[in-house]
């Protein structure tokens, strides 16, 4: 079984929002200096899901990431968790892509790798949270798409996926190959054990340019982007604290309930 996992490198989501700066003209986020690049949390769960399938069915995991040289770190992280190979897709033409552009690049790379049974993506990225690349990629590759997976089982060319719904679960089946986006409910990603960590450090991560994957540069032109950022800002958050008073605890509770009732 060959699984390809798409991962993204994001600024550490643990960094407090106040540390970020916005360039309102270029409509870009400027992360503070010294922020460690980390693997997007949902993508890490996708790698975990791939590793669990590999634990059970053997096979191979390939990891790809569109980004800069820094992305090799997140690809290495995935390899130390249990992936076998990894590629970074880096080209000037790949900068500032929207979800459609990113999916196009990933699709080209996946077609080059070929021979896959399953494509996994995180349900959304930890930075922008658009949650579109997975579905668009499925469309490009002509694969069945299952989103928000919290459990993935594979049986003879057939996938059985448990999906998270607002009020419960849904179990769906699809033939392989298919594309599945993974939600955090799948469980904690493993800590890379033992030597995998060192071996991953030494692993060669090839960098593929646009021409390596046969990407049509005209497809990546900004003018062809399907989305446009109109405004970008850091929301201001206000907290007000009001002490509820009352003579007895029961009275305090009553006052609180009436306050809450007004707010709803």
């Amino acid at each position: 079984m060959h699984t390809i996992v798409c991962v993204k490198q994001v600024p550490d989501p643990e960094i407090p929002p106040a540390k970020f700066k916005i360039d309102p003209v270029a409509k870009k986020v400027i992360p503070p200096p010294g922020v460690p690049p980390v693997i997007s949390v949902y993508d890490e769960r996708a790698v975990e899901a791939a590793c669990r399938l590999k634990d059970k069915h053997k096979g191979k995991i390939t990891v790809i990431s569109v980004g800069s040289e820094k992305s090799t770190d997140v690809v290495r992280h995935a390899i130390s968790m249990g992936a076998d190979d990894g590629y970074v897709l880096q080209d000037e033409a790949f900068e500032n892509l929207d979800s459609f552009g990113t999916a196009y690049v990933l699709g080209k790379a996946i077609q080059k790798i070929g021979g896959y049974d399953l494509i996994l993506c995180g349900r959304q990225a930890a930075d922008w949270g658009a949650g579109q690349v997975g579905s668009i990629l499925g469309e490009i590759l002509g694969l069945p798409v299952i989103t928000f997976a919290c459990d993935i089982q594979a049986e003879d060319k057939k996938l059985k996926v448990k999906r998270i719904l607002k009020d419960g679960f849904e179990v769906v089946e699809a033939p392989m190959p298919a594309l599945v986006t993974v939600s955090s409910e799948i469980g904690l990603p493993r800590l890379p054990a033992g030597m995998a960590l060192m071996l991953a450090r030494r692993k060669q991560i090839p960098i593929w340019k646009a021409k390596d994957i046969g990407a049509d540069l005209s497809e990546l032109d900004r003018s062809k982007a399907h989305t446009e950022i109109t405004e970008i800002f850091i929301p201001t958050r206000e907290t007000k604290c009001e002490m509820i008073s009352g003579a007895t605890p029961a009275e305090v509770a009553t006052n609180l309930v009436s306050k809450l009732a007004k707010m709803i």
Partner: protein
Amino acid sequence: MASREVFWNISYGYLVYLLALVSIGIWLYGFYQRYRVWRLGRPDERSKEIGKRIGIFFRHIIVDVFAHRKFLRQPFSGIMHLTIFWGFIILLLASAVDAISYYSGFHLRGSIYLWFSLISDLGGFLILAGILMAAFRRYLWKPKSLNSVLDDGILLTSITAIIITGYMIEGLRQAATEIKPHPDWAVWSPGGWVFAKIFIDLSEGVLRSWHKFLWWFHSILTIGIILYSGLAFSKLQHVIVSPLNIFFRSLGPLAAPSPIDIEKAEILGVGEIKDFTWKQLLDLDACTNCGRCEDACPAWATSKPLSPRKLVQDLKGHMLKLYPNPVQSNENSSSLIGEGPTEAEIWACTTCAACQEACPVYVEHILKIIDLRRHLVLAQNKMPESAQLMLRNMQMRGHPWAGAQSLRLRGDWTTNLDLKVLAEGDQISTLLWVGCTGALVDRNVEVTLSLTRVLKAAGVDFAVLGEGETCCGDPARRAGYEFQFQLMAEQNIEIFKTHHIQEIITSCPHCYNIIKNEYPKYGGQFKVIHYTQLLWDLLKQGKLNLLNEIHSTLTYHDPCYLGRYNGIYSEPRQILKMIPKATLKEMKRSREKSFCCGGGGGHMWIEKQPGTQKISQKRIEEAIKTEVDTVVTSCPYCLQMFEESIENKDSLKAKDLVEMVELSLKKSS
């Protein structure tokens, strides 16, 4: 001329020596069986620098064996062991003198004989006194850390019987030959004299037959004990195994884990008893179950599941179960963790080394625990969730702090300070290494800032790495996540080398210890100094002057990794004593005996076992009992732990040493 006939009334006395030879042979066989068990362990290089080792061993024999340095830290049991030890030495020498004089024909006579008799009797008396103390302690007093087994009872009873019958034999001989003609000689053997007075009226025939019977009883009992000890591998074996263990003790830095060779390693950590090294197995047999480590252990003192004594005894029990005497090959692999020590025990250790400091026979507990952790983490991926979180943070963020605890970024503390922050290509000889906690946690950043101000005031030329500094790797290494440590060590060494750094000033004792003592194995040889050492030098050179009076009663808490790990006890105290009007008081446990704050070994981030007391709370209770207003330390973990545990901050404050120095530095205007 005073003297006595050796082997008086005894025919075939030489048989005793023959029997002794046979029993020593059997004893050696028993010992050989144990040797075979130790040999099952992995190799460990302990024979290099043999000359140095022998020198150190003899120093230990004098200081730790003859003078009982470590034993006497517990006065009662120390004196108890001291009397038994010297009693046996005297009696062994006396028996040897008897044998030599009998076979060489050279007899002790006159006053030399009388003194010899007195000293021999004193030997027996010392043993009896010690045995009495031991029996009282073991069966009436019953300290919690003392666990009694059948072997203890057998040894105490039989040794008592050997000494008493020895006096009785002496008394019977005196009653028959000495007490009437030479009463002045008899009193030189007071133990025998008492019995001679009792037996004085018995006829010579009765005396002789009793004497003969008891003499053989006494001799055979003594030989029997040697046999028993050899075959059952009784605690008595410690008279050989413990010195052996001291001889092979680690001479390197305290509890520095051995590197794992990534290319060659077949096993990761210790999952089976055979995965220990032979020296670690020897350790298990050298342990006499005395409980000194347990008394010193902060985890045990706060009701955590770990007792270092029990851990070693459980490992020993597991070893004996798999390889009983005589040793047969046992190919069944048996999982050590769970059958021996439990995971909860293994994770409770703060690696404070109080156990190793207390152990009179130099058992090395900490590396066993780290080896067991390595197996859990590297081979089984099993660890407390909080430990996993810490390790993930180290891996992804380069430091163990994350999330809400750390609203700062690595280089934030340097903002708006006139500091040299190293950029690519910069070279500087002296680096101030601030450590993760000193860079990321608010209270500790205050200390870091104070340190930079004091260093500047003294005119020290230094630079910092700012956002370029990553973790030293200590929490990962102590938690058994060796490869993460190795990555960080290699990365840091490269950074130091590219900036041509020669001297590293550290603020955190954990960074200090690992960079100084453990980086050299990865090719990083740097001059590492802790800031307390540096400040003491600057004060001595007059580059800093402590002029401000501080009306305060202080106590200094020794961080484990500065004190026990690196022997830095005096500099911090000297500095504090230089502060005008400040009074320095010692807590009940200080210096070598200092009690951990609970933050080492990864425990700054590993959650404490539910329902147990915080170790730092126990330490703060001790500081409060010392009646001081400030507890001073020189480690970011200790400071953090104390800040969390001091309930009433009006009556007790936690300060870093450099903050005290800075307070005293400013000239009041």
